[in-house]
């Protein structure tokens, strides 16, 4: 299936575009694959975005927040929107949730046009915004009740549903306390459960786990996966790599408002030509052994720096036996060995030339970007 024919078309309408953005030549894309995160994906699109752009006009200059983005989200999948701060993820979510209108382009949510049928869309979506939107003067229970009524949850089931959600969020004992007294993590959990009080068809989560401790993040992830098993399509934005890796069937990279890649984790990993990185510590290294390793099929490069041998191979775990055999052959004792699969961050750096958390490219790495290491 052709997801988004990106034929280097000019920016739609050409409104306010000065073309100064350095977009990659083409967008990497592939057919959707039923994978970990998208258990329920049935191959039909629930969201279609077609050459969508959003320009914020300012006094001194215009900001292109979303730049000619096209893609589809499949029914039942967990779809990740990944990008640095200010990449345009939230703007895209706000357009899809009818809070902003696009400058140009079209989008359909469950076949409803975002411009023509916003009311219909609001009935089928649940949204957890990035900032806190609960009323801090009301209690947790009152907040949920308020939203339950706005989302047309029948009065007969609403109290039970509220308690179910409060328990889910671990807030049952705080039900009657004002939300203003809650910690950041508690507020966030309340926001998340609130988003699906009415069991929406599509759930938008904008940075759902921001500010949560590791345990709370895992709980949220479990909840997201559980909801997905119940046929909820989930679109989440994040700048946490591990979150996207853990949850998402397909991942879209957004960079400066443009879509730069969209694929499953598996396929994205294959984008990096160097493949996996295998690091082996040794006492000494034999040049002949190095030569032998270099000849092994699938090995791309070998470098030796003092006692460290670094091998990049297309499929690391499969090459290991052959590499070990070579060390055996030249009687070189191995002290330690590790395989490093490229993480989303590596892919991101490969695609954009900068780190995900670096914002404007100052290269600072902040904690929380999970690097996947397998021993």
């Amino acid at each position, binding site marked *: 299936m052709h997801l988004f024919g990106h034929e280097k078309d000019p920016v739609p309408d050409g409104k306010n575009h000065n073309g100064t953005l350095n977009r990659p030549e083409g967008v990497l894309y592939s057919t959707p694959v039923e994978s970990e995160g998208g258990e329920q994906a049935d191959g039909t699109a629930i969201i279609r975005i077609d050459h969508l752009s959003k320009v914020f006009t300012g006094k001194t200059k215009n900001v292109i927040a979303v730049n000619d983005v096209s893609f589809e989200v499949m029914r039942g999948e967990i779809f990740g929107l990944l990008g640095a701060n200010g990449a345009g993820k939230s703007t895209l979510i706000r357009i899809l*949730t*009818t*809070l*902003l209108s696009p400058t140009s382009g079209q989008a359909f949510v469950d076949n409803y046009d975002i411009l023509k049928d916003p009311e219909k869309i609001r*009935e089928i979506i649940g*949204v957890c*915004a990035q900032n*806190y*939107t*609960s009323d801090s003067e009301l209690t947790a229970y009152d907040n949920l009740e308020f939203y339950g009524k706005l989302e047309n949850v029948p009065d007969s089931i609403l109290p039970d549903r509220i308690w179910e959600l409060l328990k889910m969020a671990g807030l049952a004992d705080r039900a009657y306390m004002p939300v203003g007294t809650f910690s950041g993590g508690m507020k966030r959990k309340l926001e998340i459960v609130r988003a699906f009080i009415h069991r929406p068809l599509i759930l938008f989560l904008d940075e759902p786990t921001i500010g949560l401790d590791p345990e709370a993040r895992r709980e949220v992830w479990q909840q997201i996966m559980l909801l997905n098993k119940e046929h909820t399509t989930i679109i989440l934005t994040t700048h946490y790599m591990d979150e996207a890796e853990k949850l998402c069937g397909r991942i879209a990279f957004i960079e400066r408002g443009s879509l730069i890649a969209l694929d499953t984790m598996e396929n994205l990993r294959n984008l990096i030509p160097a493949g996996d990185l295998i690091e082996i510590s040794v006492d000494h290294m034999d040049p002949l052994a190095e030569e032998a390793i270099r000849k092994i099929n699938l090995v791309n490069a070998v470098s030796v720096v003092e006692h460290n041998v670094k091998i990049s191979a297309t499929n690391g775990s499969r090459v290991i036996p052959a590499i070990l055999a070579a060390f055996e052959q030249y009687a070189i004792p191995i002290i330690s060995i590790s395989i490093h699969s490229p993480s989303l961050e590596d892919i991101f750096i490969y695609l954009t030339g900068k780190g995900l958390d670096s914002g404007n490219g100052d290269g600072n790495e902040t904690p929380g970007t999970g690097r996947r290491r397998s021993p």
Partner: protein
Amino acid sequence: MPMMLRSAFAIFKRDFKKFLSNPFIIMMTLLMPIMYLVIFGNAMGGTITHIPVGVVQEVPPYNDTPLFTSAAYQLNHIDQTDAEKMLDVTVYADEAAAKQDLDNGKLSAVIVFPSSVSNDNAVRVYLDSSDSITPALVEAAVNQVMLGLGAHNPVLVDKIYGDIKYIQFFSVGVIMMAIFSATMFGGGIALIKDRENGIHEGYLVTPIKRSSIIMGIILSGTVRAFIAGCTIFWIDLLITGIILQSFQDFLLVLLVILIACIGVTSLVVSFASRFATQQEYASVIAFLNMVLFMTSGAFYPVIGMPGWLSWITIINPEYYGIHALRSIILRNQGFNVIGNDLIALLIFSTAMIILGIVTFRRTLE
């Protein structure tokens, strides 16, 4: 010491930058005193003109006497320096009809002339004493005209609503002020707070309709204003010694307060539906409050305002509210007099509710 000055300057600079970045607030800061000058000055100090009075001649004789003709003519032509004439005289053939119009508030006074010039036959002046200014003016005018005609008939004055003190006259206006104050802090400010804190993003993605948001907030504001209005009404009764004539009057007062609350709240909410910050909202509402209260007739009869200013009263819900409340509380009048006020308030409310709904932004833009 230099360090302290430096920090002080930093605080100054930050505050001043914010001030300059909001031209709207600067404008309102200057507009407020100017409007005070123009509106307060004109509404309070204006010369009273065109007081509607009715004149009747006692019967018999059934044809107009020279005294009556000249008195009516002279009353109708009392010139005032720098202003238009004081009285608008309507000639009635029937005393009962004239008094009927006085009771219904169409006239401020009825003057009944005797058939002849004599010391025995008095000129009877019936005054709408619920007004704070006009009775004295009418009385003085009658005395002046009689003197001018050389007629020494005694002048009998009947204040039809008794002696009404200024505090009683003004206290009715204060009920309206309580309603407006309540809506200033209650009506729609929640919408702006939500907008400032970004909370509205949460409910704008739900299926809720704009009309539900506006109606809900108006309902809440109306209840708050109603409680404030009723409380002040009670306090008025205690402080000013007003005595209501019947329980029916009491219920009628509550009804008028309720409808006035809907009118004022929907006006305020229609503004709140558009504003982004509490500061902007507060400055506009304070301004609006001033203009509406000054022109409502709470302090001073509307009749004393210059023409252009009295036009504001036509679209001023507080004017109708105060007129209706005074009719019931001070004059013991009923639906036949306040009906138009209630209709005007309801039309006004409907227009404002529609305006509020139409201008409410359903998106974040």
